[in-house]
């Protein structure tokens, strides 16, 4: 036990930086104030590299690597802002927007949505692929919360927070590819879930308007995403 922590030195965007060997490119970049966009990543939860917004170029590696799940290595040369990456990131966003019905103007989190603000940050002003306009359900059977599949981007933050922090594992994912959908328990109405503790952590971490609390005006639907790293820290401290 207690092996000495090794430090790796590497370059991100031609800047010399260093990080612990168990840290990811994303963590080291953020410590150094280098912006890499993310949607599925959330501090305090396991990273899964699902949204592909954090893709970076690493010299000598032909494919793009997701920064949130790639560990730093000695001598690595990472590029985060190339023209190609910016194009791909906008493309990822466009595909997310086209996949479901994201009508920002009438959304419960208009002005408080990570997808909406990411589009602006990355300069995505329109969706160049045709919208799919799928017909998707809204489940309002829970007494306090609603899941609107029209706004879900399948980041699975709800699944992870419910499993890793709350320990209930009410949420999971059903189906494959374009038919994937988040479900409660064995795909039964949320209000009939036997495992849900109604803690609301899933609602707090949802980046969009897919999960929201009933009966609150839009301006009060501020998500409390930052509380999570505190919870995770406290839990680890107890161990």
């Amino acid at each position, binding site marked *: 036990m207690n092996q000495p922590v090794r430090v790796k030195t590497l370059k991100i965007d031609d800047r010399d930086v260093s990080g612990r060997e168990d840290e990811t490119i994303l963590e080291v970049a953020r410590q150094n104030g280098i912006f890499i966009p993310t949607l599925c990543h959330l501090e305090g939860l396991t990273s899964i590299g699902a949204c592909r917004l954090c893709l970076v170029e690493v010299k000598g590696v032909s494919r793009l690597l997701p920064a949130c799940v790639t560990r730093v290595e000695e001598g690595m040369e990472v590029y985060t802002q190339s023209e190609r990456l910016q194009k791909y990131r906008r493309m990822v966003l466009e595909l997310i927007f086209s996949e479901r019905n994201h009508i*920002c103007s*009438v959304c419960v989190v208009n002005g408080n949505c990570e997808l*909406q603000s990411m589009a602006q940050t990355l300069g995505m002003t329109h969706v160049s692929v045709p919208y799919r*306009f799928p017909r998707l359900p809204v489940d309002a059977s829970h007494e306090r919360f609603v899941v609107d599949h029209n706004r879900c981007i399948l980041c699975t933050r709800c699944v992870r927070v419910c499993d890793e922090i709350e320990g209930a594992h009410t949420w999971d994912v059903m189906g494959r590819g374009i038919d994937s959908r988040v479900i409660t328990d064995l795909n039964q109405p949320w209000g009939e879930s036997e495992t849900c503790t109604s803690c609301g952590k899933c609602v707090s971490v949802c980046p969009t308007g897919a999960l929201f609390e009933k009966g609150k005006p839009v301006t009060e639907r501020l998500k409390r995403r930052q509380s999570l790293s505190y919870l995770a820290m406290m839990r680890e401290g107890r161990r």
Partner: protein
Amino acid sequence: MNKKRIATVWLDGCSGCHMSFLDMDERLIELFQQADLVYSPLVDPKEFPENVDITLVEGAVSSEEDLHKIQMVRANTKILVAFGDCAVTGNVPSMRNPFGVNAVLQRAYLENVTLYPQVPREVIPALCERVRPVHEVVKVDVFIPGCPPSAEAIYLALTDLLAGRIPDTAKLTRFGA
């Protein structure tokens, strides 16, 4: 000085973008010293003219009339601007797409009508099967998202366009703004 020719068009939208356009207030006077408003719901001419430099299109393409209009507008416009979320994304008008046009007609003209319920087949333009953003129908040169875009965003975008620059509209506005 050679004045630029500006037009605005209103397809399937609520006219909120045009209201926001009017909210430029006294800056309208400044803008229209460099340009003429040659066609718009806000001015008289009934026919879309030729050789328009900049056309702002509010609204999504929802009906046969919209379809016809936008093609004619595109053919006579140098820089076509998708003006507001309906033109850029389909926005609220596109919310009927998951249900299909028949469900909408049924609801509006049959279920909710007590006297002679019937779906209109004349005078009112036929609805397209799908509501589409403008760039799915014709080429669009500039996108100004927002529901509606603020008067400030419209002003800055138009100032750039009149000066011959393409505005970086992501810095000015966003979807749902």
